[in-house]
């Protein structure tokens, strides 16, 4: 698998966000893109597209993020977007058991379109700040991720800004572009001078705790 490289332009990677309605797909993207959070985002209808340049280890890549509608009936419209994705992020809400059970269906869609080998599958349990309302334990999540053969499992809180950068850093690390490189922090100034660029190699204030490395 490799990103689409054309001429001198950046290597581009297509990432599709899947998962039930209201689990926090849009919120995850917004936290990553703008480092902000609102209690409520407008429901996504159809597909939203965003793109972001990312720096890591002296390399620059372009991420194309496809945010999808979560309601079941929209599933029939989405496959064409999964078809050539490099990364599929399947999100569930740790306070909602049903959303956890549904990830099987989304993963099945991904495997139908991409096969087992051609896609980096990530399972993300969001809203882990809501400790009292938790319905899915971290262990359950880890186990499922293993069964589904996901490359990355992580719990996040888009509200607290927890583990979101970490998620994208781990995704980037799994891309072929970064397979043989070590993490050399990038010149900070450079990264900050470009507004549309996220430098995920610097250690931010965000407290990071990695989930299991399955």
């Amino acid at each position, binding site marked *: 698998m490799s990103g689409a490289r054309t001429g001198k332009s950046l290597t581009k990677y297509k990432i599709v966000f899947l998962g039930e*309605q*209201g689990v926090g797909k849009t919120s995850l993207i917004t936290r990553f893109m703008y480092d902000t959070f609102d209690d409520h985002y407008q*429901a996504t209808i159809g597909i*939203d597209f965003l793109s972001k340049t990312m720096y890591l280890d002296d390399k620059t890549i372009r991420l*194309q993020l496809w945010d999808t509608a979560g309601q079941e009936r929209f599933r029939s419209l989405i496959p064409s977007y999964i078809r050539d994705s490099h990364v599929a992020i399947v999100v569930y809400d740790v306070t909602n058991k049903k959303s956890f059970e549904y990830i099987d269906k989304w993963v099945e869609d991904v495997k139908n379109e991409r096969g087992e080998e051609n896609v980096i599958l990530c399972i993300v349990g969001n809203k882990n700040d809501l400790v009292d309302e938790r319905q899915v334990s971290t262990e359950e999540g880890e186990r499922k991720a293993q069964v589904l053969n996901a490359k990355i499992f992580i719990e996040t809180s888009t509200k607290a800004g927890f583990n979101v950068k970490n998620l994208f850093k781990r995704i980037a690390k799994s891309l072929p572009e970064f397979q043989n490189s070590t993490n050399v922090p990038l010149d900070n100034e450079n990264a900050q001078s470009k507004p549309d660029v996220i430098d995920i190699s610097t250690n931010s204030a965000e407290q990071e705790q990695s989930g299991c490395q399955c």
Partner: protein
Amino acid sequence: MSRSASLLNSYGMHVRPMHSGHGVSLPKKSPSVPDLNRTYLGENKSNVSMMSEPKPPNSKPSLVESNSVEDATDLSFIELYEEAEEDENGSGSTTPMTDPIPAAVSYSSELEQTTNSILKDLSHFDRYGFKKQSTYITENEYNSWWSEYSQYCIRRKRKWQDLLEKSGLSTNNDSPDRFPPKSEKLKRYVRKGIPAEWRGNAWWYFARGQEKLNKNKGLYDKILNNLNSSQNGQLRDSDVIERDLNRTFPDNIHFQRKSDDTEEPLMIQSLRRVLIAFSIYNPKIGYCQSMNFLVGLLLLFLDEEKAFWMLVIITSRYLPGVHNVNLEGVNIDQGVLMLCIKEYLPEFWHRIMPKQQARNNEFLYKLPPLTLCTASWFMSCFVGVVPIETTLRIWDCLFYEESHVLFKISLSIIKLSEQELSRHNHHNTRSRPPNKDDDDIEIFQIIQTFPKKLLNPNDIFDRVIFKRRISFNNLNQEEIDRCRKYVTSQRLKHKNYTELVGDKAASSSNRDSKMASDLINDALSSEVYGFKKSLTGVHWNNSIKEKVRQIRRR
């Protein structure tokens, strides 16, 4: 804060009155229709009175509450703009308004102070309670546009008042419930915008809502009553509805929970009831995401029961099948839109459609990626796609002219984005041969983002809809209905063919399946859709040419 202060200085007279009193005016019991009337012409005095005495519950939309003092002020406004006749295309008069406020401000300074602080907060919201600022529009941009557009609204309202008067209809205390019979003139008036505080009534009237309601008197309440006594909570769709309630208009104050409120906003309660009732009324649709936006907007202009019936009308008459569980109506409408683009925007068409797919009708079954962006335009009737005032102007036309408006507006948006699209295209061809994949993504992004900046509705109306020489303005409802029928039957045939051939092809070789799919495409492409209204030479020739080409191929 310094920004809003300077706003008051430079635009004070225009801006301040327009966004008064939202949220505060919300009655404590349903219906939760916010009071647009107060805020429309900006009578500051009514802000004050509104805050001191909450409006009593009222079974009609609260638009009626105009008082005589206001009327006097209205006139002083209007006289200034009387000269602006039919020609609304220009920027219009920019004569500063005289301040209509002093007439009624006779309250204690204490009250004034609280009023002022509330007004300051409210200055970030428009007259419907939506936040002025968005990702694509700054509050300053909003305010400077609004200072002109609000005057346009005043001029248009005066026109409507004249029209009603000439037609012998009453404005019914600024809440007319009858409108003149359909005519070219009325259509033009509707296209130029229905006065905001008449909108609910006008939509209801033009969509023939009362007819529908009369046939089903009491049904809405009955559904809700049955619900209370039985299965609430275990309904199939209640969970999915619940998850979207607070994700409908999080930026609108009527849908926001105030920090000191323990009870949820009335709007949210109404929204829940309408959506639940609808899911019971029409189980074939149940609840489909995007309906929350339709109902949410309706509730800002109509009471609950009417909003319910309008949703019934929208999902059956204007967007048949679009919200059904299989979303087939979405696919059909996107197929129709693609045919329209092919016919009316050929340049754009060639960019989104690879040649081999364009030749036959394959795009009707394998819709191009762009359609997932445009699908949401239809599902939510442009709510959230274009800024709110533009959405409302589209809705005015939708209820008067029916669904072909949605196709026309879609074509208009694409046409208006041409400049941006071609800028990218040139850039692309100069540096290297365009890469189809990159180009697709670029187009998707432009088409997705461009409409969000269409703050001024007249950008669409004056630059496209009112231009006679733009060929797709010939599109009418009959054409779209015919087109929908065609796409429906083509998609159905395709499905039947593939089911039939597909079973055999699956068990045989690749070559066979390739042949099978060619066979299907050939069989289905024999029927080419020809646009009736475009018999103006060129288009007619195109469709004949296509037919001849096919006969030859065979």
